[in-house]
């Protein structure tokens, strides 16, 4: 179990990141978009934690950073959902492509 190279974590993180990015850019439902953003952040977290153990210069900073990231990501999701709910009340939709009252 110890012999998973750092590349493995990095590749996983990149895959997660790309899935998240793809979803965030293409999905209609704003909730899914927000979740995809979380996915991207967590990919970064994975990187941070992997690096903090297996990086060129292992150190604890990465884990601390990831704690902060988790917090911030939670706050961001909370704010995002709060705004989404406000929007839903007024527009009855959570679809990103229906948010078009503002001029193109």
């Amino acid at each position, binding site marked *: 179990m110890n012999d998973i190279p750092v590349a493995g974590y990095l590749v996983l993180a990149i895959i997660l990141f790309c899935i998240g990015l793809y979803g965030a850019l293409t999905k209609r439902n704003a909730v899914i978009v927000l979740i995809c*953003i979380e996915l991207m952040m967590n990919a*970064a977290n994975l990187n941070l934690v992997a*690096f903090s153990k297996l*990086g060129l210069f292992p150190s604890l900073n990465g884990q601390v950073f990831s704690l902060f990231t988790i917090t911030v990501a939670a*706050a*961001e999701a909370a704010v*995002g959902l709060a*705004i989404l709910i*406000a929007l839903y009340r007024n527009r009855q939709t959570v679809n990103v492509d229906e948010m078009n009252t503002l001029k193109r």
Partner: protein
Amino acid sequence: MEMLLSLPWGLMLPEFIIVGAAVLLSLLDLFDIGKRKLGLLAILAVLSSLVALIFLYNDPASDILYGTFVLDGFSKAFKSILLVGAALVLMLALSDYEKKMIEDRSEYFYLFLTALLGAMIMTSSNDLITLFVGLELLSLSSYILVGIRKTCTASNEAAMKYVINGGIATAITLFGMSYLYGLTGTTNATEMMAVLQGQTRGDVELLLSIAFLLTFVGLVFKLAAAPFHMWAPDVYEGAPTPVTAFLGTVSKLAGFVIMLRIFLLIFSGTPAGTTTVMDKMQIYIAVLAVASMVIGNVVALKQTNVKRMLAYSGIAHAGYLLVPFATLSVFTLDSMWFYMLAYLLMSIGAFAVLYAISRSGDDSVHAFSGLYRRSPLLAIAMTIFILSLAGIPGTAGFIGKVHIFLSALAGDASYYVLPAILMATTVISFAYYFRILQLMFFRASEEEVSAIPLNLKIVITVCAVFTIVCGILPAIGYDIFYENFPFMRDFFYIGQN
């Protein structure tokens, strides 16, 4: 306990004032203090923070909290600009124009302060974690600020778009930062620089480039530079004007500040082959600058909503500001500083005039029709801002532009294309800037402008006067910069020396 007291907490005094004020305001808000009083308190806090910062001007550069927070010439210089801008925007927000629009006006003030705090931390952060937290503090507060008109669909939509775009940007930046951390094993910019300067491995260089690009792209979202500008027009349009003014100025400039610091600190010293990573990456910055200038100015031509127009103009200005960054020279920092100052004054001024005349919530350019007849002074003030935005001599915008020019042209001839495009797009921008002049002076008036409240008068006057003063006697602005933030000494804090 010794440790607690031995730290030089005075360095963070400006931040502490803002934090204290934000907390105090949110508490006071619970006890039905008049909203106006809250606003005044907020302004007072920002001003006293500025005063505190000015008292710190002469202190040598130093750090606190294990090098995560530094107060050096760089941070002082840019923090001052942010605070000035914040004070002006707050002043602008004080009036009751959009009472019906912003029902939670008091929340505006403390969210504003937290956003400002985020921006201030960003200018001073010397550590990726602090930087990230500052960035997010700014972002999250702005998301809510944009959506503060809870019942207004446009505001909701704008906020949602901002959250999504901002969230993606944050995630990208974070991903880039994670690589930076991985390659150096530290989150502290100074240490990072030291580690990277020693590295010579080729594969590291590749990863560094990726890290650079990711971080850069994420931060560019904040600046609303093309092609990552999509959110800006919608958000500017949907947000209440005082928020738009904040986003267009303080928030945007904070993005520049942090970009300058981490890129100059981390990448410009990192060897990559024969040059540095920064040198290799300049082409991307240049491309972005060009794209922003062209897209911003061209698309602005067909906008009929002033806020959208100003949004695109802001995109273009972000492009202008990227030019000295892309063509790093001895003039980069001071030119950007001065241009930011000028941009702050003229943008906030323009938003203030817009705020004064479009109280019915109509942001169409036709709100300016016949303004000269209705309110000559307002029209003249707007003319000053417009001319400054367009870069006509006699205004701060001109000096700033010349300096940016100088920064780009003093260097190698291969960079000449950037200023050339800058100039060409400036000419394009004349078309839409002068259209406002045309409307103000040539068209018939529609409705009367009712009395402008005192706070708007103050904002407009201050902005107009300083736009002119900085245009005619720019030495005033430059002296502040050159004398207090000597470039050669202490400008970037690099550890105990």
